[in-house]
Each structure stands twice: as structure tokens, then as C-alpha cells.
């Protein structure tokens, strides 16, 4: 089967810094594959491995900076056969609706059986690209998938929702958003990374430039809660007792 897996490149959230005016400073945060999209890539690779002759195509869209050789190799070293990337500054700062519009344009020619997406991206966590992409492609979609298997002409998936676990038959082609639990991302070896450099990478300009449908009014770090900051050396007289008493009182 032909499997497409969509992923997003986001600034590494471990390296975002807060400036004095509470604005977010991304200057030290390198672009990485959004954490839970790695689980989707792994799910795609495992599905392909279970069905010999399958292909896995990774697809992404974003600003020109996502066209990074290390990042592309990292994706292609994870059981992915080829990569299609729309890297264009016209695609900077897209929300889920815009992302779905661009991915739909990139997939307009069809040729796939299933499009896998991650649970949510580290920045917005909107959980909307999957269903909005499906809406644009005229396909069924299912989210929160924790297990998937081919059965007949379609997929049977287990989705773990807030209160129930549903077993759902999904006709193909379809868009399937997977939960992080679906598969543990592999750690690519040196051989995988070297081989990745030789795999096909199709980097192109924006297939369309979506109009913004949301205005961002403000973006800042939350104000820090006021804390009492009673700090003492543990060896100081009564310090342990005072700490324990405050802890007891808090409960």
C-alpha cells in the first residue's frame, strides 16, 4: 500500500526562552520534527513493514528554513522511502486550516491509500489538520488511533477516546491521526542516516498561499504566579519542621 505520513517542523520547545518583556524568544530553538509526528512516522514505517511492497512518503510544508539537510535525513532514516516538502517563506506561521489547505494541494494527485498524521503539533496542538485535510480531500478521517491493521480493502483501527475505546472500520483512502501510544519512534542508526541521504527528496515552492483566517492579537509567556519564596538551609534550626508544617497545612 502507498502510505503518506504528514509531519510538522516546529522550534524545539526545550530551547524556547522567555525574554524580560515576556515575549517568546525562538532564536536558540532549532527546527525539529514535532514530537508526536515521530510516532506517526513510526506507525507508517511499521504498517509498511507489515505489508511488503508498500511505500512510505513523508510530506510537510513550512517556511524555507525547514529545508534543512539534517532534518530531512532524520525523517528519511525512519523507514521513510521519500520526502516531499513545500519549503517557502510564504508558508511561515500557518495555522491548522492553512496547513490542511497546503497539504491537500500537495496531495491533489492522489495515488495514496492512507495519510497518517500525528496527534497534535507541539506548538498549537489543535488536533485539526487531520480532519480538515480529510474534508478538503473528500475522505473519511478518524483520530486518536492507538492500533491499526489492514483488514480486507480497509483498515480496522482502535481509537482511545476520553471515556471509551472504539473499534472502527475505515474505508480507504482515508486520513488517520494516531496517538503517541500507537508506536515508539525508533532511534535511527548511522547506517540509516547515511542511506537516508541517498533517498529522493522533492523540495518545492508553495503550491498555494492560504489566506489567514485567524488574527493573532497577542502572544506572551503567562505571568508568573506570586510565590512566597521562603527558602532556608536544610541544616538551619527548625527549617525541616517549618517546611513539613507548611506542607501539611497545604493539604
Amino acid at each position: 500500500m502507498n502510505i503518506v505520513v504528514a509531519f510538522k517542523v516546529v522550534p524545539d520547545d526545550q530551547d524556547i526562552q522567555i525574554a524580560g518583556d515576556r515575549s517568546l524568544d525562538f532564536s536558540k530553538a532549532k527546527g525539529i520534527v514535532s514530537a508526536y509526528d515521530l510516532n506517526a512516522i513510526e506507525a507508517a514505517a511499521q504498517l509498511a513493514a507489515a505489508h511488503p511492497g508498500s511505500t512510505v512518503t513523508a510530506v510537510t510544508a513550512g517556511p524555507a528554513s525547514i529545508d534543512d539537510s539534517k532534518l530531512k535525513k532524520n525523517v528519511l532514516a525512519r523507514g521513510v522511502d521519500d520526502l516531499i516538502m513545500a519549503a517557502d517563506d510564504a508558508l511561515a506561521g500557518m495555522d491548522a486550516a492553512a496547513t490542511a489547505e497546503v497539504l491537500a494541494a500537495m496531495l491533489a494527485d492522489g495515488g495514496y491509500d492512507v495519510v497518517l498524521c500525528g496527534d497534535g503539533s507541539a506548538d498549537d496542538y489543535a488536533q485539526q489538520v487531520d480532519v480538515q485535510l480529510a474534508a478538503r480531500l473528500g475522505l473519511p478521517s478518524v483520530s486518536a488511533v492507538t492500533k491499526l491493521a489492514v483488514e480486507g480493502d480497509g483498515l480496522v483501527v482502535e481509537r482511545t477516546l476520553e471515556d471509551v475505546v472504539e473499534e472502527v472500520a475505515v474505508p480507504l483512502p482515508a486520513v488517520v491521526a494516531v496517538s503517541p501510544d500507537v508506536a515508539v519512534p525508533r532511534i535511527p542508526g548511522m547506517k540509516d542516516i547515511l542511506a537516508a541521504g541517498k533517498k529522493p527528496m522533492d523540495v518545492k515552492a508553495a503550491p498555494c498561499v492560504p489566506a489567514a483566517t485567524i488574527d493573532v492579537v497577542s502572544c506572551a509567556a503567562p505571568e508568573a504566579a506570586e510565590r512566597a519564596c521562603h527558602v532556608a538551609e536544610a541544616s538551619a534550626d527548625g527549617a525541616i519542621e517549618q517546611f513539613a508544617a507548611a506542607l501539611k497545612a497545604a493539604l
Partner: protein
Amino acid sequence: MKALVIAETADAARELSAGARTLADEVVLVTFGQTPEGVSDKTIVVNVPAGAVADDAYATVQAIYDAEAPSVVLAEPRRHVKSVAGRLATAAGASVITDVVEMGDAGAKSLYFGGVGERVRKAAGGVAFYTVAPGTFEGAVPSGAGVVEEVAWVAPAVPLTLKSSREREKGGADLFKANAVVAAGRGFAEESELDLARALCEKIDGGLACSRPLTEGVDWMPSGTYVGVSGLALAPKAYVACGISGQMQHMVGCNRSGMVFAINKDKNAPIFKQCDFGLVGDLKDVLPAVAAAL
């Protein structure tokens, strides 16, 4: 101005309808699960047939949306409802502003990067779609005659099929319910030292959580127990950070706690500027002493 509320639980139907009343003159509620009474001007019940999946209610709700032509849509942030909202928004050429925690005059506030930032956003077009977190409209009172209509199910062109549905076994929810959480960080030199934190947990009936290095760097704790960006965001009455330096990436997961306690051997650790009570000392000495004093 008209608001459309889409919900599957009664609590959300009630709260979102009450919130919708603060934004619009007319409130139409669509339910496809539980249906509370007297919370809207009109309530439209979508009965999901056996074998259908609630996400596929979008085809039915689309007809309601077209007929009602709302200028604001409030949806419950659960997976079934989020799917329906996404389909409606795409058809309307709009975005969904998700997981709103505060609705203000300037716009709707949501977390960004798991709480590292907060963004206020508003719809650029004529209709605004929001999914709204529980508690956002706390205190708002629902009202309305709540005339109930039932609509016939419209199956989408390519439907999903529900083969089975069972109650979910929940694990890891304890940390959300716990009054006290003890979180272990890199200050623990060996896995066996975590027993000191466990002993404190027992004393205060708390759950044991950790910072990211204890699940990613080493495998001492399950990945579902780490607090911070892309992990858990907890708000217990008391949060006891042990051997955790207090990086922003961790603190966004615990800064809504009632009281923050910190134990760290580095007196310059940033956590001491973000806690209520702090002790400077070695975990191996301090944890048993605190447990003994409780």
C-alpha cells in the same frame, strides 16, 4: 447574533450554552450524546445510529449549520466534537481556535507550546469557531425555553463503521486527582534513591511524578509521568519538586499548583524563586528528615 453550541456531554452542553448566551442573543444547541433541558433557545438532537461513529455526525450538523447560519460556534473539546467542528470550519473557510481557556473582548486565549506562551486570537472572517475548555464560562447561567427537535441522521458519502465500543480503562489519571504530587528530577543520582521520594509520597498520600530527564535521559520513570512542556500539566494543592532545577520547560507543568515546595542542593537553582517553601540540602538527608517530621 446567533451562536451554535455542539456538545456530547451534558456538563459541556450546559456550560457552553451559558457561555454562548454571553456572546449572542440566540443560542442553538446541537447534541449527539446527553441532552440537558432548558439551556438554549432551541436544542437539536442528533441520534447517532447503531454502527455509526459520532465523528460522522458532521453531515447532519452541516445541514443544521447552513439552516441556522450562526456567527459563532462553540464546540466541546472532545475528539468526536472536534472532528465535527473541523469539518464545519473547512466548509465555512474558517479556522477553529482550539482549547480556549479565556474568552475576552480582545479575543480568545489558548495555550501555546503547552503553556510556554499564551496567545489571544480572533477569527478574521465572518464566523468564529472555538473549542472551549471546561471552566472557561464558569459562573455563567444557562437559560432558554430549550425547544427540542430531533433530526434524521445524514450519513456522509463514505461513512466509518463502529464495530465495537467499550469503557476505557484509565491509568495515570491519579496524578490529576492527587492533592499532593512529589516530582523527582536530575538531583537523584541513582534509581534506588527514588524510594526516598516514594516514602514522602506515602506520608502525604501523594503521586510520584518526574521531570523529563528521568524518562528520556534514563528510563527510571514511565513517560506518562513527566511534568512540563509536552508532558503533564498538574495543579495539585501541594507540589514538591525534589532535585528539579526549575527550568521554564518544567515549571509550565506545575505553576498552577496551590503551593510549590522545593528541595535542591544548589541554592542558586531557579526553582527557589518560584516556590513557596524551599530547603537547600542533599535529597538523601532532607527527604527522610521531612518525611519523619510529617
